């Protein structure tokens, strides 16, 4: 929000017209960056010219006898001639860029060349100095080091600081800054009465230790983390991520050192023996918008998610704008496209889908379970029992050989094959369906498009790939044993074809259910809760033969393990590779509860494939049974699995117990919540440079790595997210500490020392107080990244204690944006503070910390309305207000709350007429006004003067002066007269809102006071930090 002219008047004259030498970073880089780099900068590949002016080496290079810059020799430098040219074909920058150089800028460039064209590393990439000298300042004004830096600059410009603000104003200021809430009257009185030297510090310490402080810091961090309670994009379903928000509150409350605050969020899952909170913190990386629009390409959106993680990381921690480098090398900063994709590779290595599931409420993988303590205990017990039962079964299997041999000797006769649940021969179509060979079994539905053709046995169905054959059964759970056998003929190599599935859809249901596919020509079976991260998937190592009838059997033992899945071709088990082996939740649900052959929603069907003799069993067929089935026999010779399952009492009982335990576990697991987090895949994903940023235009393969213009990973750091996190908070990283202290400076002073808190690159603003920024950053690191320490020293500084009144018109004209901090910068309160303030002073605020999001009144008036909550939830702090990305709280939006669709480190505050309407008319604010009015009338009765004073003090933390008293007194008497004459209107006004209305006998007075409070709730000193 700085005034451009200011920099012209303060910075440029210093260089261009004074005896000072030109400084590259201060004077030259901003010109080159904005006017020259687009065509002569770091993005060499996409530039027409060979000439580059972003480094000394390039700028002074010999280009066929022409030299862009000859240091010290202006007239020999081509740049000089080009920027002075009047020839439209030769002048730089070219007229069509519409960015001409000003005469002052031309003068600066000439002087710079004349003085030797020295380059400097961009200021923010210079390592943080070990020590920063504090200016020696002789002034009683100075309270701590911060003030010395500020005073020195003020003195240099010939200014003096503003007088210290009153105690009431300071308390109000610090109360909002640190807790987001106004001081209570008791607090105010206590502070005014405390004349000890430690009074200020005592207040700060108390505030920093309060949960309200943690909530206030969290509210700001939610904007950075683009937190919302819904997935975003078009459908924008609800997602349950508030446990992460509650972790943030805990982290601030416990004053988790900020380097750990960063590390946990980036890579808590990779810390040794991570705690639940450390893993939970990584949900930070999953808070980007997620898509579910039907027909979208999953990879397109997966790439988008990875990019969002990187952009958020770049903005939040490094103050770098990564987006530019997504399509080409950065035009202004030395970030190449390769840097971009190497950095983004750190965030790409999780087992996720590009689309979440439309048909099921599954939480996108990877996830962390969040059981209550009791649930966790129960689960631990069950898992232990299951493990013990399984090993008992294994033992029994290993020992049973001789018993089986004896039994078989006694029972040599072949046994009949088990009964199937359903058998379809496809020999005929009857009433649009294939009859079921099982007596009274339901038929399988089809459309006439699927043909009856000669089969393996009699006739078979030939599938179109777009028409389903829908069976009447097959809704097995992951705890059920089942088998499916069929004859099938694939006419050709299938890249992907669904043979059969119990699953509503592919991407739209995250494949929930089970399925048999041809995948890259190979048989592939899966049981899926959420594709890909919560599933069992096995695939044949060899291609399935085309053009021949083959007998295929899928068996499953109900174990939820890949080892429990068997695939047989022509009666023989085939070698399988395990693609996924992590199934921990149900495979039912999502619709389409029966087996469907040959087709699936938005998936590739089994086009022109043939299927015959399709059988479904509610048991795990044994190898001997499968073999007999494939051979067309009706009997089989008993094998060990058959013996164990049917004849061995110990094994049979063990199996029954195992099955019951699994079902019990599933019932428990269904009640346990989970949340999206980060979890590295065992085998890293291969990442690529994407040409023009397109997901489909893969360029060269890239591996994770940090940009070359910044320091390398610290010694011994692994090359993964954890290494990146260590690098981010490492001593050698020049950015993170500066970016962090700047953001907190901004939190208190409305602007950072670097006004572009989101951009520390070459297009960003220069720091107004570079040494102070470095000193603060160094001090922050030296104190173990202690945020409370940082905030405390700032709010106790004399700089922070200045009055916000503009004392001298001359000073404010010379520096209208107050970059030198010649007074405290006033600012309107944030949306959260405005609403919380009204709740707090009215006594309505319900201070419960944490928990699910709540829906205040205005959610009913949102673009996509939902019914508001009742009772306490209407009065919680705004940090808990339900945030739906495509339909945020209209009240909060009107008051400039962040949109939370992308990482935002700075929220703007602009007045608009709609804000007044919200603050004067919305039930939330009117109810607050009438509630406070009721209390004040209770306390003061008809003593208008006392009532007025307290009303004013509660809303502004001070007493009114005579002029203010007169204004408000007039209003109060006019309104009292009005409502005395209109008692019905009074009753209506004071009944507004959900909370009980006050007794009616005082209605006119309460209504009149309500209008008074409502007015005060819109008064500058109530809604601004001054």
């Amino acid at each position, binding site marked *: *929000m*700085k005034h*451009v*002219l200011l920099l*012209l008047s303060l910075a440029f004259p210093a260089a261009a017209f004074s005896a000072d030498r030109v400084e590259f970073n201060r004077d030259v880089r*901003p010109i080159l*960056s*904005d*006017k020259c780099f687009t065509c002569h900068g770091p993005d060499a590949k996409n530039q027409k010219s060979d000439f580059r002016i972003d480094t000394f080496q390039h700028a002074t290079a010999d280009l066929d006898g022409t030299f862009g810059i000859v240091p010290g020799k202006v007239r020999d430098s081509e740049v000089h001639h080009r920027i002075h040219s009047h020839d439209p074909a030769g002048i730089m920058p070219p007229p069509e860029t*519409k960015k001409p150089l000003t005469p002052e800028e031309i003068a600066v460039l000439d002087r710079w060349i004349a003085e030797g064209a020295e380059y400097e590393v961009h200021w923010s990439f210079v390592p943080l100095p070990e020590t920063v000298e504090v200016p020696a300042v002789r002034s009683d004004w100075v309270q701590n080091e911060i003030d010395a830096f500020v005073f020195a600059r003020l003195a240099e410009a010939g200014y003096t600081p503003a007088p210290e603000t009153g105690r009431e104003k300071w308390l109000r200021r610090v109360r909002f800054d640190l807790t987001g809430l106004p001081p209570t009257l008791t607090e105010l009185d206590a502070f005014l009465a405390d004349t000890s030297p430690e009074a200020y510090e005592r207040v700060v310490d108390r505030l920093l230790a309060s949960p309200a402080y943690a909530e206030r810091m969290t509210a700001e961090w939610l904007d950075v983390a683009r937190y919302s309670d819904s997935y975003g*994009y*078009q459908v*924008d379903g609800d997602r349950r991520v508030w446990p992460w928000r509650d972790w943030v509150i805990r982290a601030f409350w416990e004053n988790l050192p900020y380097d750990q605050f960063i590390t946990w969020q980036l890579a808590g899952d990779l810390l040794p023996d991570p705690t639940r909170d450390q893993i939970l913190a990584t949900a930070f990386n999953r808070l980007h918008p997620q898509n579910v629009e*039907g*027909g*979208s*390409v999953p990879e397109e959106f997966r790439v*988008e998610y990875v990019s969002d993680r990187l952009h958020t990381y770049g*903005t939040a921690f490094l103050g770098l704008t990564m987006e*530019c480098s997504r399509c080409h090398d950065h035009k202004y*900063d030395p970030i190449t496209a390769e840097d971009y994709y190497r950095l983004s590779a750190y965030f790409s290595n999780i087992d996720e889908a590009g689309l979440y599931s439309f048909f099921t409420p599954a939480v996108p993988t990877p996830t962390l379970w969040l059981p209550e303590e009791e649930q966790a205990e129960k689960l631990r017990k069950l898992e232990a029992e299951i493990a013990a039962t399984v090993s008992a079964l294994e033992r029994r299997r290993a020992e049973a050989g001789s018993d089986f041999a004896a039994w078989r000797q006694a029972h040599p006769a072949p046994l009949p094959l088990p009964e199937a649940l359903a058998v379809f021969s496809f020999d005929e179509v009857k009433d649009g369906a294939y009859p079921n060979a099982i007596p009274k079994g339901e038929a399988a539905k089809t459309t006439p498009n699927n043909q009856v053709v000669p089969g393996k046995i009699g006739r078979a169905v030939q599938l179109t790939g*777009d028409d389903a054959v829908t069976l009447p059964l097959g809704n097995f759970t992951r705890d059920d044993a089942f088998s499916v056998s069929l004859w099938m003929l694939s006419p050709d190599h299938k890249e992907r074809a669904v043979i059969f599935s119990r699953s509503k859809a592919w991407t739209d249901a995250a494949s929930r259910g089970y399925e048999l596919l041809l995948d890259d020509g190979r048989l592939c079976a899966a049981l899926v809760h959420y594709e890909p991260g919560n599933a069992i998937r096995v695939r044949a190592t060899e291609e399935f033969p085309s053009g021949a009838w083959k007998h295929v059997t899928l068996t499953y033992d109900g174990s939820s393990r890949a080892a429990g899945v068997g695939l047989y071709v022509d009666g023989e088990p085939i070698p399988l590779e395990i693609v996924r082996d992590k199934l921990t939740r149900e495979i039912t649900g999502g619709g389409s509860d029966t087996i469907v052959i040959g087709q699936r929603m*938005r998936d590739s069907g089994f086009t022109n494939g043939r299927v015959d003799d399709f059988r479904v069993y509610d048991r795990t067929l044994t190898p001997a049974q499968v073999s007999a089935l494939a051979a067309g026999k009706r009997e089989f010779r008993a094998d060990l699995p058959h013996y164990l399952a049917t004849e061995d009492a110990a094994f049979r009982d063990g199996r029954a117990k195992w099955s019951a335990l699994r079902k019990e576990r599933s019932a428990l697991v269904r009640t346990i919540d989970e949340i999206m987090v980060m979890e590295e895949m065992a085998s890293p994903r291969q990442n690529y440079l994407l040409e023009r940023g397109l997901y489909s235009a893969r360029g060269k393969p890239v591996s994770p790595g940090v940009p070359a213009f910044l320091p390398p990973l610290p010694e011994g750091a692994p090359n993964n997210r954890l290494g990146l996190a260590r690098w981010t908070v490492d001593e050698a990283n020049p950015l993170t500490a500066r970016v962090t202290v700047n953001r907190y400076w901004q939190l208190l002073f409305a602007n950072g020392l670097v006004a*572009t808190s989101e*951009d520390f*690159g070459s*297009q960003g*603003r220069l720091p107004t107080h570079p040494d102070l920024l470095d000193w603060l950053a160094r001090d922050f690191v030296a104190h173990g990244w202690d945020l409370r320490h940082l905030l405390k020293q700032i709010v106790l500084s004399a700089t922070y204690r200045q009055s916000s*009144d503009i004392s001298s*018109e001359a000073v404010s*004209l010379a520096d209208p944006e107050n970059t030198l901090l010649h007074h405290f910068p*006033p600012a309107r309160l944030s949306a959260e503070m405005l609403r919380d303030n009204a709740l707090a002073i009215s006594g309505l605020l319900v201070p419960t910390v944490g928990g699910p999001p709540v829906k205040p009144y205005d959610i009913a*008036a949102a*673009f996509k309305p939902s019914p508001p909550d009742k009772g306490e939830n209407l009065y919680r702090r705004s940090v808990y207000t339900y945030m739906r*990305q495509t339909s945020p709280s*209209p009240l909060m939006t009107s008051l400039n709350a962040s*949109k939370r669709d*992308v990482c935002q480190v700075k929220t703007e505050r*602009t*007045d608009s007429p709609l804000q007044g*309407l*919200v603050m*004067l008319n*919305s039930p939330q604010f009117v109810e607050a006004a009438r509630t406070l009015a009721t209390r004040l009338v209770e306390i003061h009765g008809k003593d208008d003067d006392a009532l007025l004073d307290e009303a004013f003090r509660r809303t502004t933390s001070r007493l009114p002066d005579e002029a203010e008293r007169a*204004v408000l007194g007039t*209003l109060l008497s*006019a*309104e009292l007269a*009005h409502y005395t004459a209109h008692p019905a*209107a*009074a*009753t*209506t*006004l004071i009944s*507004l809102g959900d909370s009980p209305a006050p007794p009616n006998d005082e209605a006119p007075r309460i*209504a009149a006071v309500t*209008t008074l409070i409502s*007015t005060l709730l*819109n008064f*500058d000193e109530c809604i601004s930090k001054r």
Partner: protein
Amino acid sequence: MTTSCTGFDSPLGLSRRETLARFGGGLGGIALAGLLEKSEGAVAPPPYLTSAPKAKRVIYLFQSGGPSQMDLFDYKPRLNAEQGKELPESVRMGQRLTGMSGNQSSLPLVGSPFAFRQHGKSGTWMSELLPHTAAIADEITVIQSMHTDAINHGPGVTFMQTGAQIGGRPSIGSWLSYGLGSPNDNLPGFVVLITKDQKGQPLVSRLWGSGFLPGKHDGVRFRPDKDAVLYLNNPGGLDSRSRRRMLDSLEALHRLQLEKSGDTALETRIAQYEMGFRMQASIPEVTDLSSESDATFALYGEEARTPGTYAANCLMARRLAERGVRFIQLYHQDWDHHGGLPGGLKRKCAETDRASAALVTDLKQRGLLDDTLVIWGGEFGRTNYCQGKFSPTSFGRDHHPKCFSIWMAGGGVKAGHSYGLTDDYGYNILEGGVHVHDFHATLLHLLGVDHEQLTFQYQGRHFRLTDVHGKVVNEILA
């Protein structure tokens, strides 16, 4: 205009508040503006105002879901002749398909079941579904060669409305609010009207959001409700005399505060409360259609009497245009005919055809068409092949990004003109392709704005509505 301006500076090099004060209209009389004039001399027009504006305002009738161009504007008899035949690969040329039909085992061509004929002196082709639009054929330019990069609704609509497929960028109306301000002191400069109770692909509020521009450039949605704007009305039991007294007291307090603090931002605050007060009168006035004549309702259709219908919104758009609102954005949903296209499309046209045409006619009658740009269109077209199973009465078409049709009227656009040409299959563009960025560049040009120079610096970049692309389509300019 120096290297150092931040995102909050306008292209003039003034802070946003100053820009607002000078160009934003709406807040005339702010002391700050006077102060600056004194210190800096005369005010030059912003550099992006490079041409004389033909249009002063825009009414954008957005048909969300992707209306089927070859059933409405882009006549393709060959599709009828080759109905049922497979889409030739030589035509498709590897174009990506959505996941909805991409795995279909066949892509059979399907012709339009609707009769086409030429209309007006211009001989513009239109199908029988648009009899009223056909009657204004000589007022409009039909662009048959629009194309986009998006194949799904979320990215597609976002692209049309903000110039980027991914969210977070300002919408067209926000750019105009930022660049041109609002000429009306009593109404927002960017108003959004949505047909109520429509099914179909959901709309999202960021479509009329200001992205990284200051929040006051957000579109303001008028709802078919007593509170046309959120909390427009005083709370029950509080009448406008009390409200007036409250605001007078508030202003008195703010004037005292201004004296003490010297903070001129208080002037803005006072002005904003006053504007809010005026809006409490002006919005009910503009949204109340009861003063409109029976002839007008006959023109727009009787359903215009029902608040929230498309017809009522078209009529309200005219009332807003009359009062100088800069950008009026309508949305009508449910054009996404993956199945049941013949019936569905007929229904959509019945809901919109008469009122769309009536708006153009009405604006013309009132002499407003010359400086009001009316745009009708969706986010992409539909495929020439059938999605799902073919049946003459219930077939569907999938999304098609490579060509679609929109029309424009008034505001400096040719009357009675067709632009661009697609191939006989209605699949690829042969001539005069108009990309979404070109469309935006042209729109801004008609308002006198150079799309390359209306920029906003955010995260180090000078952002434009047209990204780094866009060419003005001179051929459609009158």
